[in-house]
């Protein structure tokens, strides 16, 4: 049997879910024999490959770049997993939603700037009006709440997917975790 092709990506989030992924510790060695990590912030590949079995997506959709990446990933992924509260609920990144991006940029780059005030224009992706959870943009197959989901929960999810089952997260993790 060929190894499961796994990708992970990090959109509008803090990398905490990836830290939790690494917290699987020695279980990573066990997993390494069963899956192939084809794309991730943890490996140095520039292009998201074709025909990925499972992609763990950390973070919400906050910029046009996030949205493009997510749509691209969705088209190339069989099972898309919303990993953690930012992906599932938009969580902390969505705290800017009641105020709008302009007010947030002004607070960060004008009002509190001590030198060279002004928000960056061209070098970085534009903030969208609202930060959204993944499933408001593309269909999501598995939802894993938690901020972050524990290493045990991530291990459980991967084990179930490796066994060809849909993980049942009921009672295993919660918003806020």
């Amino acid at each position, binding site marked *: 049997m060929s190894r499961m092709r796994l990708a992970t990506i990090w959109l509008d989030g803090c990398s905490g879910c990836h830290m939790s992924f690494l917290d699987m510790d020695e279980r990573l060695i066990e997993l390494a024999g069963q899956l192939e990590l084809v794309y991730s912030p943890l490996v140095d590949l520039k292009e998201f490959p074709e025909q990925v079995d499972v992609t763990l997506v950390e973070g919400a959709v906050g910029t046009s770049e996030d949205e493009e990446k997510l749509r691209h990933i969705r088209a190339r992924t069989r099972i898309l997993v919303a990993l953690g509260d930012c992906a599932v609920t938009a969580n902390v990144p*969505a705290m800017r939603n009641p105020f709008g991006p302009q007010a947030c940029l002004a607070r960060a780059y004008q009002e509190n700037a001590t030198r060279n005030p002004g928000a960056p224009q061209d070098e970085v992706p534009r903030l969208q009006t609202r930060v959204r959870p993944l499933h408001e943009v593309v269909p*999501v197959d598995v939802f894993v709440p938690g901020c972050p989901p524990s290493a045990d929960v991530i291990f459980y999810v991967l084990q179930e997917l490796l066994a060809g089952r849909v993980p049942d997260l009921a009672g295993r*993790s*919660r918003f806020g975790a």
Partner: protein
Amino acid sequence: MNAGIKTLRIDGRDVSARADQTILQVARENDIFIPSLCYLEGLSPVGACRLCLVEVKGASRLLPACVTRVEEGMEVTTRSERLDAYRRMILELLFSERNHICSVCVSNGHCELQSLAERLNLTHVHFPYRYPRLPVDASHPRFVADHNRCILCTRCVRVCDEIEGAHTWDVMGRGIEARVITDLNQPWGESESCTSCGKCVHVCPTGALSEKGRSVAEMAKRRQFLPYLTMMRTQAR
């Protein structure tokens, strides 16, 4: 008070109850779980959150267990696919209505909304979130009211009125605009009726009312006092 005994069935189990008891009270006495958020033992029930809706044989609609009295021969179902779906929908609507961001909430890990979502297997919210812009009132020297986390259960309103006797809290506005207020929508810190007793804080099911100085996940509520206060007052009358 009618002291008669009624016999009924809850989820196929025969249970007996006093005639003045509600379905919810009898279920809890018998360790049968019915979810609720606005109900709190010691306060008058209002049937506002609708989470305790149950199926009663012969009734054409679902009935809120917290305000429905037991009847002889009643057959109650507390769990079904239909009830589960409605309860999850209610929770999803609550989550989408305001800004409940569990990960950075003072009540993370001690919140009834959060733990019910976990217990009812809610893994995500199907409705688009509203992200309203709501105030945080930190004008009181000891307490904070964060309207982002309020679910309008009115426990604070009832405990302040029925137990403390101050009636500092009430509800203003209608529908989606409704909000709990102190006095005549004045800052809490300027309220003349508030006795700063803190009962509202401790009956609040979420992080909407908290003690100042509590950081994320530090606001555990202590509400054991309530049934005793109610009992003492009932006996004193």
